[in-house]
């Protein structure tokens, strides 16, 4: 199910403002790709352009191509809604629907597809997804409680369960651990390592140890100055980035000699 993503000559605009310029990258299936870089360098914008979530803001548009296993995500006849059904997303702050129970949160994506599901099928899907997110044992006795009754780390795993319940091809994670304590962070990192067997995972993180721990490939984004577009400076295997990067800027950033 995991699919490969090829990005070529991607420019991302907000209105007339060029936010990200000239991204060329190939993201491998069944692996974790980490995106690092200073704040405001466009890595989140790039991540959100992969499932066309950046279009939520008025005036956002792209030039160039993002192709997922041969399918152009920005083709003229492609509905962003369908793109998002294939490419799931987990956000920086855990965002379970507060008006829904834990059970309904997990089932929400499946119900969107407007398929009538039998109760037993839904039960099975919810259990499978919650187990997949390592949350089942903690919540199986209170599935009817609101999602907001969980701790932050549990909420984030609930969001992951919700995202994987629809069996996407790709899972995007926008700083998924930045609001969590170290123990919850560890739980999510372990989970990511399990999930990469089934999904292509792209994660934006400010935590360089995290990128080094979990990812196979790492991309470093940077920008020359305020108002300048962000660029993908270097994209290499994680080991190389953190030991012997090609670019001086990358080395400066990961060794903390930045700016």
């Amino acid at each position: 199910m995991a699919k490969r993503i090829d990005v070529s000559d991607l420019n991302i605009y907000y209105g007339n403002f060029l936010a990200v310029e000239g991204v060329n990258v190939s993201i491998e299936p069944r692996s974790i790709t980490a995106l690092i870089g200073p704040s405001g360098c466009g890595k989140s914008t790039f991540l959100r352009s992969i499932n066309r979530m950046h279009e939520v803001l008025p005036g956002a548009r792209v030039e160039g191509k993002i192709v997922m296993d041969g399918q152009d995500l920005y083709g003229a006849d492609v509905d962003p809604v369908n793109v998002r059904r294939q490419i799931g997303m987990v956000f920086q702050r855990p965002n379970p629907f507060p008006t829904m129970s834990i059970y309904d949160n997990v089932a929400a994506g499946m119900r969107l597809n407007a398929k009538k599901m039998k109760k037993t099928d839904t039960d099975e899907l919810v259990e499978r997804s919650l187990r997949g997110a390592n949350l089942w044992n903690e919540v199986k006795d209170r599935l009817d409680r609101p999602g907001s009754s969980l701790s932050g780390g549990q909420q984030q795993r609930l969001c992951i369960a919700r995202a994987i319940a629809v069996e996407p091809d790709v899972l995007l994670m926008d700083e998924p651990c930045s609001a969590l304590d170290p123990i919850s962070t560890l739980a999510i990192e372990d989970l990511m390592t399990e999930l990469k067997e089934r999904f292509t995972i792209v994660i934006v993180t400010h935590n360089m140890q995290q990128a080094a721990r979990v990812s196979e490939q790492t991309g470093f984004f940077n920008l020359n100055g305020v108002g300048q577009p962000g660029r993908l400076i270097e994209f290499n295997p994680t080991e190389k980035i953190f030991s012997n990067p090609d670019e001086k800027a990358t080395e400066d950033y990961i060794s903390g000699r930045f700016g």
Partner: protein
Amino acid sequence: MTTSAPPRPPQSPDRPKRRRGDRIFAGSATGAGIFILVVLAGVAVFLVAESWPAVVAPAEDVSGGEGLTSYITPLIFGTLLASVIALVIATPLAVAIALFITNYAPRRLAAGLGYVIDLLAAIPSIVYGFWGIFALAPALVPFYAWAERNLGFIPLFAGPASATGRTMLTAGIVLAVMILPIISAISREVFSQAPALHREAALALGATRWEMIRMAVLPYGKSGIIGGAMLGLGRALGETLAIALVLSASGGITFNLISNSNPSTIAANIALQFPESTGLQVNTLIASGLALFVITLAVNMLARWVVTRRADFSGAN
């Protein structure tokens, strides 16, 4: 000011220091809270005291000659009927307007439209009354005739259709237009505050715009919609002038919405009867006012109960 404060004596550990600003603010806030309760109690006491003579009076002395209950019951019925009609028409419309403004309209159109809707709230009710009697009622006459012919089997449209259009349904529509801005303003406010976090969660799952609204905006705004509807209902229950002008009232209890014989409403009845009333008649009118007071209070408490019933799931936590 360059004077420096003198060194403060150490605080005794068992008693937290209360600053003067805190005390003044706490006092005035508490005072305001108590004041509103006193006013409410005062109104209630006045209403009960003034309506008491009508309650204990022999039945044949009360206006209508059949006792207080049979005088007030049709009025209560008329009040509730007109308000419910208004609510049934206005709530879906107001919610749709609010959704359009917050989620669908281009930004410039949204601002203009919101402004126009708010303007509806600023129109005096006497103007609505004139509009209802001179414009809306005649315009609806053909519709009432049609409804009697084709929908007459439904008791609501039994007829005979009014030739003037001054029916319960017309009154309800006028009330609906009057309460529309209240409900839509409050719905708009809560819809626009639906957290981007949850809207994005829905969109990222592959929700269409309408599905996103159903998952993240409407549930979040539900208590706001109910609150707005109840505020609107409050205004509809107490509306006087527009009803007094528009409705052709003859008393009695009927669900027939398109005929010339309609129950009056409490507020309109008081306005129409009061100038010519003396003695016990005044007490009777005040008793009907007491009934309106109780109904409004009950409606508000019901709304509050509905809003807080599922507080866990409200999205406020």
